[in-house]
C-alpha cells in the first residue's frame, strides 16, 4: 500500500489552488483569514484526527464513569440504580470502566479520559441541536452556515495526501428522522463545498465511493476518461484562454479522476483486508456480511444486529489514516430512538452498544500504535451528552422530561439510563500528543452524578483538538465581512493538562 505521507500542503495547493482562486475572483465565498497576524502559531502534535462519534447520548455511568451498581430486581425503585453494570478494572489503576468494555479497558494506558465534559444549555434537549453544537462549536441556529469541525480542519490544513479527501465521514445515513438537522452541520457551511464531508454511509461499501460507477469495468472507466479528454481537446469553444470557471472545472475533474485511480483509493476497499484482521474489529465477521437491521422504533434487537458495522468503520478509518487521511469521523450512527438513544431497554441495548464499540476501538488504538501512527493521530471518542435514569438536563436547570420513568421498575425495559443528562459526559482521547493513562475531571458518586471538578465545555475541547493539529482557537474566517472564529468568539482555551 502506498503510505507516502510526504505530500505537503503546498503540493495540494498547486493542484487545487485554481478552484480557490476562482472563488476569490468571484468574490464568493469570502473565506479568508481575517486575523492571520493575531493568531499564534502552534506546533502540531497530530496530523490526523479521528472522531469516534457515539451519536444519541452515551450514558457516562454505563460506560467510562461507572458508579454504584444495582442489579435489576422487579419492583426496584427508579432512583435506586446509578449503573446497571458492574465496574471492571482497566490497565490504569485508578480508572474503572463499566463491564462490557474489557478490550478498551486493556488499552486505557494509551489514552486520556475526560469525565467532566458538559454539554451546553440549549433548552429543550434535542440530539441534533447538541450534535450541531458539538460539531461546529456553535449553538444552532446561526445567521451563517457554520462549518463542521472536519471542514475547518480541511480548510485550514488541507488534505494530508491530495488523493484522500480531507474530511471523511463514515457511517451516517441521511434518510432518518432528523436527517435535515444532521445535514445542517454535516457541511463545510460558508467555507464552501470543497471542504465538505466525503460521506461514506456504509463502511462495507466504501470502495464504491471511489470506484467507477457500479457496473463499469476499470478498463471502460479509463477509456471513458480518454475519450472525454479527446472530445475536450476537440471541442472548439472555450479551449483557449484562461477562464477560471473552465480551469476549476477541468481541475476538479482531474482531481476526481486522480483520486479514483490513485493507489490510495485501495484504502477504501475493505475486501483487501485479511479476514483475521477484520475479525479483530468485528469478531466472527463473515465475508460479505451485511448489516441491515430493520429500523423499527424502539427495536430492541436493532443494536444487536448492527454489531460490526461500526467496527468496519473503525477499520476503514485505520486504512485511511495509513494513506494520509486528515480528518475522519466514524459514527455508531445517530437514528432517533436507536443505538445510544435509549429511551427504554437501556440496559440490554447498552450491552449491544458496548459490543459494537469495544473491540474495534481497542484494535484501532493498537493497530495505529503498531504502525507508528498513533503518536501523530488524535483519536477522540465523544457523544452529544450523557444519560441518567431520572434527571433530564442539568440538576439545577430542569427541562421537560421526555421519557416516562415509573417510580417502581417492574419491567426490565425500564432498567437503564433513559433521560438526557447534560451535566457530565465522557470523552476519550488517544494519541496525537495527549497523556497516556491520564484522567481529567471528576463526577459525583451519588445522584446527581454531575461534574464536580475540571469542567470541560465544547469550546475548550475543540481548542484542544485544534491545538493538537496546530490550529489556534482564535483563528477566524471572514464571512459577510465579519470574523467567524473556529471556537466560539475565539474564546476556546486548549486544556493543556491533557497533553504530554
Amino acid at each position: 500500500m502506498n503510505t507516502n505521507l510526504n505530500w505537503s500542503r503546498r503540493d495540494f495547493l498547486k493542484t487545487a489552488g485554481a478552484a480557490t482562486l476562482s472563488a476569490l475572483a468571484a468574490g464568493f465565498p469570502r473565506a479568508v483569514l481575517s486575523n492571520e497576524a493575531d493568531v499564534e502559531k502552534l506546533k502540531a502534535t497530530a496530523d490526523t484526527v479521528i472522531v469516534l462519534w457515539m451519536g444519541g447520548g452515551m450514558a457516562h455511568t454505563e460506560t467510562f464513569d461507572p458508579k454504584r451498581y444495582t442489579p435489576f430486581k422487579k419492583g426496584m425503585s427508579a432512583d435506586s440504580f446509578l449503573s446497571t453494570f458492574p465496574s471492571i478494572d482497566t490497565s490504569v489503576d485508578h480508572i474503572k470502566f463499566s463491564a462490557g468494555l474489557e478490550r478498551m479497558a486493556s488499552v486505557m494506558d494509551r489514552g486520556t479520559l475526560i469525565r467532566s465534559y458538559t454539554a451546553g444549555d440549549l433548552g429543550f434537549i434535542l440530539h441534533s441541536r447538541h450534535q450541531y453544537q458539538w460539531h461546529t462549536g456553535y449553538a444552532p441556529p446561526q445567521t451563517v452556515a457554520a462549518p463542521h469541525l472536519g471542514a475547518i480542519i480541511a480548510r485550514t490544513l488541507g488534505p494530508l495526501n491530495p488523493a484522500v479527501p480531507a474530511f471523511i465521514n463514515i457511517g451516517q445515513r441521511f434518510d432518518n428522522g432528523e436527517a435535515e438537522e444532521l445535514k445542517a452541520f454535516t457541511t463545510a457551511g460558508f467555507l464552501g463545498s470543497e471542504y465538505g464531508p466525503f460521506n461514506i454511509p456504509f463502511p462495507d461499501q466504501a470502495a464504491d465511493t471511489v470506484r467507477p460507477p457500479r457496473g463499469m469495468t476499470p478498463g471502460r472507466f479509463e477509456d471513458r476518461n480518454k475519450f472525454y479528454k479527446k472530445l475536450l481537446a476537440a471541442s472548439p469553444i472555450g479551449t483557449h484562454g484562461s477562464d477560471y470557471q473552465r480551469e476549476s472545472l477541468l481541475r476538479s475533474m482531474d482531481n476526481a479522476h486522480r483520486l479514483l485511480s490513485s493507489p490510495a483509493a485501495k484504502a477504501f476497499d475493505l475486501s483487501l483486508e485479511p479476514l483475521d484482521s477484520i475479525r479483530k474489529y468485528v469478531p466472527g465477521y463473515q465475508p460479505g456480511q451485511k448489516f441491515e437491521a430493520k429500523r423499527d422504533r424502539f427495536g430492541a434487537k436493532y443494536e444487536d444486529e448492527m454489531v460490526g458495522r461500526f467496527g468496519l468503520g473503525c477499520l476503514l478509518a485505520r486504512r485511511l489514516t495509513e494513506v494520509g487521511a486528515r480528518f475522519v469521523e466514524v459514527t455508531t450512527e445517530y437514528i432517533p430512538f436507536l443505538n445510544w438513544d435509549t429511551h427504554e431497554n437501556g440496559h440490554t441495548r447498552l450491552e449491544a452498544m458496548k459490543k459494537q464499540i469495544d473491540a474495534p476501538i481497542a484494535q484501532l488504538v493498537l493497530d495505529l500504535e503498531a504502525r507508528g501512527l498513533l503518536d501523530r493521530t488524535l483519536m477522540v471518542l465523544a457523544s452529544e451528552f450523557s444519560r441518567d435514569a431520572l434527571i433530564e438536563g442539568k440538576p439545577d436547570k430542569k427541562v421537560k422530561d421526555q421519557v416516562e420513568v415509573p417510580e417502581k421498575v417492574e419491567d426490565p425495559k425500564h432498567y437503564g439510563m433513559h433521560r438526557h443528562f447534560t451535566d457530565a459526559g465522557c470523552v476519550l482521547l488517544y494519541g496525537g500528543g495527549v497523556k497516556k493513562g491520564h484522567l481529567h475531571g471528576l463526577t459525583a458518586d451519588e445522584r446527581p452524578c454531575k461534574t464536580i471538578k475540571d469542567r470541560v465545555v465544547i469550546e475548550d475541547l475543540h481548542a484542544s483538538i485544534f491545538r493538537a493539529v496546530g490550529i489556534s482557537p482564535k483563528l477566524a474566517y471572514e464571512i459577510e465581512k465579519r470574523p467567524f472564529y473556529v471556537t466560539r468568539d475565539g474564546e476556546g482555551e486548549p486544556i493543556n493538562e491533557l497533553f504530554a
Partner: protein
Amino acid sequence: MENALSPLRLALGLLAVNSRWFKSSFCVAWLTTTASVMALTPEQLSQLPAAPKHTVDFAREIKPILEARCVNCHGHGRAKGDFRVDTRDTFLQGGSSGKAVVPGKSAESYVIELVMGFDPDNVMPRKGTKLTREQIALLRAWIDQGMKWEQDFSFARSEPLNLTPRRPKLPAGREPNPIDRLLAPYFAANKIKPSKPVDDRVFARRAYLDVIGLLPPPAELESFVADKTKDKRAQLIRRLLADNENYALHWMSFWNDMLRNDYKGTGYIDGGRKQITQWLYSSLETNKPYDRFVAELVNPTPECEGFTKGIVWRGVVNASQTPQMQAAQNISQVFMGVNLKCASCHDSFINDWQLADAYSLASVYADGPLELVECDKPTGKTASPKFIYPQLGELETSTNKGVRLDHLAKIITQREDGRLTRTLVNRFWQQFFGRGLVEPVDDMEKPAWNADLLDWLAEDFADHGYDVKHLIQTMLTSRAYQLPPVPLTEQTTTAYVFRGPQVRRMSAEQFRDAVGALAAAWYDKPAAPIVRSNGRTNHFAAVRAALVPADTLQIALGRPNREQVVTVRSSTATTLQALELTNGSELAALLARGADSTMARHAGATNEKLVLETYQKALGRKPTTKELKTACELVGQPVQKAGVEDLMWSLAMLPEFQLIH
C-alpha cells in the same frame, strides 16, 4: 443626576457586550481611565516619535489613519465613550474622559498618550493593528500644526446611498436599447470598443438558460438560426418569457434560495416552518408585479406567511434568531440589500447599523413590545417599531400588528423607495452578467460601478408597473448582454471594468435539467402539490429539478440547504462535485436511462446519426469531423449502450456544456 449617571451606564452596557464577534475589551476605551489628561513623564515624552517637519496633508496623510483606526467606534454614527471624530469640532469636544486633543500641543494630547499605549490596559485602537510610529508622528505633526480639517468633510453617518429614486437622462444615441445608450459613455471613458455580438447559437443558449433554465431544443434552435427576421433575438426573448411554466420552474430556485423555501428541511417536521411553494409558483407563473410580490411577503396571507414566520427552532435560540429578528434580517437583506445580521446582536462593526435598528424592524413583527437584547443580555430598553430607513416615511406606531405590517409593506413598496427596485435590478444584472452593478449584491449601500445604469433601470422597472419580465426583456435584448463572454479573472472589486457578461456555471438545477433533456429522464413527481393557473394540479411538461427536494447530485452541485438566505451561489467547481459527477449513482442512472431511450429511437440506425443528435441536444451544434470520428469510435458500430452512456457523460462533463458562455 441622570446625566451624571449616563456615562457609567454606557460603560456598563459596553462592558456587558462580551460580543459574539469580538472580545469585550474592545469597546471600553475612553471610559476606563479616571483622569482625563495626564501629563506624560519625561521618560514617556522621550519615547514619542518626533513629528515630521513638513506641512501635513489632512486628506492624504491623516484621513486614512482615522478612517482605518478610529471611525469604526468613533464615527459613522458611533460614539464609544461619547467621543466622535466626525468633524474637527467633535474631535475637539472630546469624550467622557475629557479633552482628546490640545491643538498645537501634541505632547499634551490624550489621544497621543492612548495611541502610544503607555497604559497597557488602555490602548487605542482597542482592536486590530496598533498605530505605527510613523502614523503617530504624523498625528503629532497634524495636532502641532493646528489640526487642519478638510472643508465640509465628516466621518458622520452619511445619507444612505441608492435609496431615493433618481432618473438619469438617457444619453442620445442610435442604440435602440437604453442599456447600451447608458453604457456608451462608460465604454468611451474606459476606452473599450465593444466587441461584436455573439453568434445566434451562443445567444440562444444563453437566453434559454437565463430565462427558462433549459437548453434550447435542437429543432427550436435550428429554426431560430435559420430565421432571417431582423429582431429575431428580441422575439426569442419574448417567446421564452411567454413560456410561463418553464419560466416559473426556473426562477423558483432563485426565489427559494432567497426566501428559504424548500420541501424538506429543519423546522418543517414539527410545524416550525411553513412552505410558500404554491404562492411562489403562482406568483411567478402569473408574473405578479414585484411591488405586490414584496407587499404580500411583508404583510402576508397564510399562503405566503412562511417567509416572515421564519424557522422556529426547537429549544433555546439566541436573541438574534427569534422569528421576528429573522423577519427583520431577511426583509432587509432580500428586498433592501442590507445586512442586519451583526446589528441584531450588537451595534455592527462592519457597517453603520445598530442594535436599535434591527430591533425596531423586528418589533414590527412582534406581538408586544420587544426589549433590546445585546449579545443575549437584556438591556432594559424597548424598541419602537420602525423601518430601517425613516427617510422613507414614519411607520404608524399602532398596537395593531396588522396595521403595522400593512403600513410597512406600503413603505417598502412605495414608488419613492428606490432601494427596492435597485436591489432587484442589481440581483438580475448579477444573474445575467455574472457580477452585480453593486457588489456584493447584499450591500446596496455601496456605489454602483455605473450609477446611471442602475438608477435608470430601477426607474424604468417601476415605471413599467414593477414588471419583472419587462426588466428581463430590457436586459436580455441589450447589446451588452450579447457581448462575447468575459473570462472570470482575478479582478479586484475596485479594478472592475465591465466588458460583457462573465462566463458563468450552470446551477445545480440547470445542470440536472440539461441532463434531463439530454437523457429524456426527469423526476417522477413534484414534492408538493402545485395548482397551476389553469386549475390543474402538478401538471407539468417535465418534473424539473426545482420541483423536488435536493438529491445527492443537486447538493453536490451546490443547491444550498435553505436554512440561511442565499442570494448568490458559489459557482466554483470542487473535487467532491467532480467525484459525484464521475462515479455518483444518480447521474449514472440518468445516463443509463438516456442510453436506452436514445438507442430505442435509433434502432438500426448508424452510430453517426446518433452522435449527431446527441451533439445537437447537448451542445446545440454539429460535431466537427474530428469530434464525430472520436465520438463514433466511442459509441461503436453497432451502437453499444455503454458507448452511448459514455458519450453523454463526456459531453456533459465538457466546460462547453456546463458553462454559460
